[in-house]
């Protein structure tokens, strides 16, 4: 099946929201009634266009699709090159899916400088789609860093009381992680020059022969960038702060999409560019992932703040993503098990998409409560089901999904990764399986304390159930979570050729 789209669809997906954002800035707060609609229409159209990616996607090939290439910086042989494969495309669609919901959620809630709030999210959307579709490492890096700016502003202006601390910590942490990636990108660029043809193309980096020592250095540099983003224990400490202080929309984007960039980075850069170093150091990543799953699970259990609890649960769930990605090498070295390896990566991918939906939904739920009571403390709630029955139903659904209940998307990813880890080593599976208990414990205990029981105080007694906007957001997310949980095949089909190709690529040593 050949794609019928001849126009630069990825460029449109990147620049349309950015143009919308700039228009919002120019429009200002005075015309915000119009501005809201501009923001909504822009993001909705972006999502509409992004669905074309899915329908027109050729599921028989691992090659990049919808490719565009233009000269950008000739001196560095760097191109404005875009394209998506089975790994990037679902993430692009996820980004385009979540952003309109963020716009809707802010409709009446954000009163302070609303035009800039929408503008920041629109620009951020364009940049994030760009990160997932960049084929040129320099373009990738530029967008990867540029993305920090709107998020820095979002947390800093619309955040909670400790927003300044949180946002500067967020910026510096991620900046520190990524600068080393920049040095290793430069290093590889110069290696391609030595090989004859200077290039920043990621595909050329993947083909570049590198010695083990070089690979180890590059791997560690990548690890610094992606581990901070995922985030992996022990460089996760920025996340709870950023999540707690960020406004609802900021938390949603952070959890649903920004964290995925770390996982995406591992799959796009670390594994294929430095396969031997990944093989050598996979014990490190696997241990850190298991620590994240188990230890952070316990940490989540004792949180008093709803957002913090979900933030820690995000870290634990993202542990599955890194675990699934790096199990490959264990599986290969045990018995050349390519099916298991592909299953691990499949699981990691499904987990990313599913976590994007579920954690986004959980943060929306907290946002709904916060907008009414202005407290994130679990103690401030109790018996919400009595006053907000519809909301309670959604919250319970998402909580179940978060703890990996079958028939929800949360189950599929975790299950795939667990099976893959069983094939590798019983103890990996045992430790990773702890999440089924821990995840259920902290999420359901949260639900028990917030949703069920007698009405705790007069704030809860005065609660109004969800309005139409909120119902729309939660409803759409609930459908997505259930659909992906009941029938994940379309997603797996889209990814299959790319994942198989990736497994093939990383099992061939570069040495």
């Amino acid at each position, binding site marked *: 099946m050949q794609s019928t789209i001849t126009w630069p669809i990825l460029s449109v997906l990147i620049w349309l929201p950015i143009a919308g954002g700039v228009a919002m*800035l120019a429009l*200002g707060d005075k015309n915000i009634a119009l501005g809201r609609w501009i923001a909504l229409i822009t993001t909705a159209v972006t999502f509409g266009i992004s669905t074309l990616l899915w329908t027109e996607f050729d599921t028989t090939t691992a090659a990049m699709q919808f490719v565009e290439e233009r000269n*950008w*910086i*000739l*001196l*560095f042989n760097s191109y404005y090159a875009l394209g998506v494969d089975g790994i990037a495309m679902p993430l692009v669609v996820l980004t385009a899916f979540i952003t309109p919901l963020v716009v809707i959620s802010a409709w009446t809630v954000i009163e302070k400088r609303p035009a*800039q709030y929408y503008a920041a999210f629109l620009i951020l959307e364009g940049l994030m789609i760009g990160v997932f579709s960049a084929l040129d490492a*320099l373009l990738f*890096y*530029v*967008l990867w*860093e*540029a993305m*920090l*700016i709107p998020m*820095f*502003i979002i947390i*800093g*202006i619309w955040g909670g009381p400790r*927003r*300044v601390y949180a*946002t*500067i910590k967020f*910026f*510096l942490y991620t*900046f*520190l992680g990524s*600068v*080393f990636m*920049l*040095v290793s990108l*430069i*290093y590889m*660029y*110069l290696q391609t020059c030595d090989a004859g043809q200077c290039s920043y193309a990621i595909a050329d980096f993947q083909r570049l022969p590198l010695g083990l020592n070089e690979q180890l250095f590059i791997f560690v540099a990548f690890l610094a960038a992606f581990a901070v983003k995922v985030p992996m224990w022990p460089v996760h400490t920025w996340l709870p702060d950023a999540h707690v202080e960020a406004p609802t929309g900021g938390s949603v984007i952070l959890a649903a999409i920004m964290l995925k960039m770390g996982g995406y980075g591992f799959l796009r850069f670390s594994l294929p560019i430095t396969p031997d170093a990944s093989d050598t150091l996979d014990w490190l990543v696997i241990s850190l992932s298991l620590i994240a799953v188990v230890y952070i699970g316990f940490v989540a259990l004792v949180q008093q703040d709803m957002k913090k609890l979900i933030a820690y649960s995000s870290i634990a769930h993202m542990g599955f993503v890194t675990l699934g990605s790096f199990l490959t090498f264990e599986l290969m070295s045990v018995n050349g098990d390519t099916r298991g390896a592909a299953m691990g990566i499949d699981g990691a991918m499904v987990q990313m998409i599913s976590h994007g939906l579920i954690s986004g939904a959980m943060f929306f739920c907290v946002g709904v409560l916060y907008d009414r009571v202005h407290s994130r403390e679990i103690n401030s709630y109790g018996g919400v089901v009595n006053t907000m029955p519809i909301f309670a139903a959604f919250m319970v659904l998402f909580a179940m999904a978060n703890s990996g209940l079958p028939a929800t998307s949360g189950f599929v990813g975790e299950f795939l990764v667990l099976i893959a880890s069983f094939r590798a080593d019983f103890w990996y599976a045992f430790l990773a399986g702890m999440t089924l208990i821990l995840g259920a414990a902290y999420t359901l205990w949260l639900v028990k304390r917030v949703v069920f029981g007698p009405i705790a105080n007069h704030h809860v007694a005065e609660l109004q159930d969800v309005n139409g906007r909120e119902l729309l957001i939660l409803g759409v997310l609930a459908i997505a979570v259930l659909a992906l949980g009941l029938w994940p095949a379309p997603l797996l089909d889209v990814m299959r050729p790319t994942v198989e190709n990736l497994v093939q690529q990383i099992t061939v040593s570069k040495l």
Partner: protein
Amino acid sequence: MEAVVTNFGMQAAAAEIFLLTAVCVILLVDVFLKDEQRWITYALSLLTLVGAAFVTVHFAVDTRVIAFEGMFIADPMGDVLKLFSYGTVAVSLLYSREYLERNGLFRGEYFVLALVALLGVMVMVSAGNLLTVYLGVELLSLSLYAMVAFDRDSGIAAESAMKYFVLGAIASGTLLYGFSILYGVTGTLQLDELAVAVREVGPGNIGLIFGLAFVIVGIAFKFGAVPFHMWVPDVYHGAPTPVTLFIGAAPKIASFVLAIRVLAEGLDAMVASWQSMLIAISVLSMIIGNVVAIAQTNLKRMLAYSTISHVGFILLGILAGTNDGYRASMFYTLTYVITSVGSFGMILLLSRQGFEGDQLEDFKGLHRKSPWFAAVMMMLMFSTAGVPPFVGFWAKLAVLGAVVDVGLVWLAAVAVLLSVVAAFYYLRIIKLMYFDEPTDAVDIQAGGTLRAVLSANGVAVLALGIFPSLLLDLCARVLP
């Protein structure tokens, strides 16, 4: 590159001759003007810059031309740097007018001094002989000393001018002493002959290395690199803001070209020696500049320390000792000048009668008063911090590439680590502007010209960040 020797060098130096003539005319005209007619001097100065740009473009050279028996070089790099210098001087005059008028500094001498300083920069840019280099250095430095002290009633300005003068004189002496030793060993002051002679004598010659050390001290001082940076914060802080702006712009181009002409062209065979010296200076500059900047409460002082750290980055490109490195360094210098001019322009934008606007606190809540100029300042700060998509990122990328290329990966790692430290204090300004509430309700009072030029400056930082090729290709063309 083929060297074309023309004995009659008037064409090669046409821009310098034009500028000098124009300065004399302006000086004469100014004598006959009343105070309220002073704008004529201002307009004439700007016209002179336009004229000089025209002359430079008209007599632009495609290849290296040597004139005046080798004293003077005209080359494409020189032409580009000169054009940039005109631009930065013009922009700094446009930014400064209101401040100068308000503070009684709007006098003819100011413009004449600025133009003579520019002439010094141009002479350095085109120097083919160590004596010409020195001539340019002194022409520039003496004008700057006078400009720093221009506000006669300000004690702090007088103090910083004195400091600048005494330390600058010592540095000039050191430079000259170094030159004399080089002359003693090689028997020539001519840069191209020097390059040959150094190879004959051998780059390991102890006398040469001794002379080189003094030359490096002189260059480091003019750049304001650690450990010869003591004058930078005091002068930046003490001088009237327009003068600080001026010092941060064209003279940086001059320092860059000083290093290129003397080290890269005259002493290129000794690269191993000056590379290790510059590594030390560069790392120290980045460390001291970035760490001390965090403690500042005055924006001019903070930018002074930030300048010191940027000098460290400029030196990174030079110390690579490759053409890629020089090109990267030139790109960095031009980029730095564009952003630096804008940052000081922001201080001038905020200043008003009896209010300097140079404290960090003064930027509090700027976003409330003027969203656009807060955005401009944000772009400038992110650019200086080296965050894409602003042009400062490409400058960092270029010098890091040059350093990694010669195998100094550790140096690149140190540099990026320190740029993270630097990000902190730039972020703090953005925090003040965006996350804090204003402490007063006074609006920005600056006039239309300042606003327009500053806006263009901010847009340029973004536009060059998205299309860095515009500037990169230019640097690549003149430094192939």
